[in-house]
């Protein structure tokens, strides 16, 4: 498993798509810095807000490209037959690849986190806003939450890759999953507040949404940016259960991926 992990890290760092997304991530941080100029009263908060969105977007794209490079494309090109020729289980291969993605993702998170920190400090250098942002523990906790969010999406993408015969499918479905999971919180909130009094909408969609929320995790629960931006912590219980939800969902996806992958035949 460690072999698969280290080889995955090496090829992940060499991958052109990763390098392209890294450049995109750096560009997004630059956009975050510039976005601060649009705010009359809270330039650092807006820069931080846009920056968190950029970090999440970049991390998810990176994880999806890594899964595509390290799993889906190997299957597509039949290179995987060499990997599976070793006397190790297919579960070890998938777990190794997931851990490789996780390590790479952590490196990217730290890098983008520091860049964002710098961008926010520069964004607010000319104006003292009344409510300062907190760039200590709340900032890093938020960045960690975004990395965990991206890890869930990566695990989902690995699960899709384990049965997909088209290499681009994990990327496309993973991206859809990321949007759906993130938008679920807003949707649940909307229905919880009565859908602006639209009873017909409530009647039709609420049962469906109630079902979907058990299948797709609410990834917006891993977004704790209000803590860093406004000093509104989500609460220990929320953080704890959000993390448990994410890790257990990752474990579930990896187990499903292993079961599916073990039964797959490569001709």
């Amino acid at each position, binding site marked *: 498993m460690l072999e698969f992990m280290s080889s995955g890290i090496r090829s992940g760092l060499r991958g052109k798509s990763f390098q392209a997304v890294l450049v995109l991530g750096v560009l997004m941080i630059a956009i975050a810095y510039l*976005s601060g100029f*649009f*705010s*009359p*009263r*809270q330039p650092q*908060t*807006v820069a931080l*807000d*846009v920056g*968190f*969105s950029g970090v*999440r*977007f970049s991390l998810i794209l990176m994880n999806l490209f890594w899964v595509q490079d390290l799993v889906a494309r190997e299957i597509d090109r039949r290179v995987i037959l060499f990997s599976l020729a070793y006397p190790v289980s297919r579960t070890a291969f998938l777990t190794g690849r997931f851990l490789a993605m996780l390590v790479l993702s952590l490196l990217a998170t730290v890098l983008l986190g520091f860049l964002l920190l710098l961008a926010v400090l520069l964004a607010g250098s000319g*104006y003292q806003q009344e*409510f300062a942002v907190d760039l200590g523990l709340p900032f890093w906790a938020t960045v960690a939450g975004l990395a965990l969010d991206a890890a869930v999406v990566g695990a989902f993408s690995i699960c899709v890759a384990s049965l997909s015969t088209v290499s681009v499918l994990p990327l496309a479905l993973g991206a859809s999953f*990321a*949007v*759906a*999971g*993130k*938008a*679920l*919180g*807003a*949707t649940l909130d*909307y229905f919880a507040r009565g859908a602006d009094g639209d009873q017909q909408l409530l009647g039709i969609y609420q049962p469906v949404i109630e079902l979907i929320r058990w299948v797709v995790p609410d*990834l*917006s629960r891993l*977004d704790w*940016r*209000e803590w860093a*931006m*406004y*000093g*509104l912590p989500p609460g220990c219980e929320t953080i704890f259960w959000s993390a448990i939800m994410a890790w257990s969902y990752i474990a579930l996806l990896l187990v499903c991926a292993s079961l599916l992958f073990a039964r797959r035949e490569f001709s």
Partner: protein
Amino acid sequence: MKGRRVESGLWLAAVLSLCAYGFAQNRLYGLPGAHAQPELLISLPRFAQVLMAGGDRYLAANLAGFRVLVADTERMDAADYAVQARLQSDIAWFNPVHEDNFYIAAAILPWNGQVDAAQYVLRKASEARTFDWYPLFHYGFLHYHFRRDPATGAKLLLSGVPRATDVQDQWALQNLAAVWIEKGYQTGTAAGMVEAIAEDSPPGNFRRYLQVRAARLRDLQHLQDAVTQYRERYGKGVERLDDLVTAGLLAAIPQDPLGYGFGLDSSGWPILGSSPAVSK
């Protein structure tokens, strides 16, 4: 031979397409565009905005916020303000804690006929920003000035007192609430508050906009004071604002910087004009 004909045909098609495109662009450039401000042309449904932001409601709030911030308030009409009101209500739903949103909503929307939207944004901000008394201050002012409901306004000011960490701020809020309750609505008080809000804003267009609004209110206050003196002196009200100049109470009728002018209501009391055609 056939292949060369096909290639020539493709080149011909490319040249024709390019010409058609260039010609169309040239013609379109000379035609008038849409009436509304381009940055405020469309207000998409909330879910569409969230999906377009990759499911990220904070990003959706910021994207809508940038559209509001780049809009040129000096060139906007009622339709633009209606779209801005919808956008700002959406932002309040995506991220009610957003500071710029409630601040801009308070400073622009109610002055342009969007009192309900401003009230929604300020209510959401007051609930979400539990550490900040400013939304409650603006929410209270909205009730005081636009709803002509000093009692509710004062109640909102007082609910902001525990949030103020500075003792001076606490006293100011309590004092203002007392004035509102004792004296009811007064144009001079409202003008002073808008002046203070403008003073607190960063320099630029936004501050100038608020200063114009404050100057208008201050001019209205002068007109109302003059009408009160006129009534005391002659025992009757004015029929036209020019009567104040004739009586020597004013050197001239103030020039409204927005061009809407001032008018009289049915009881002969000066009011702000709501359109450029208001008769004096």
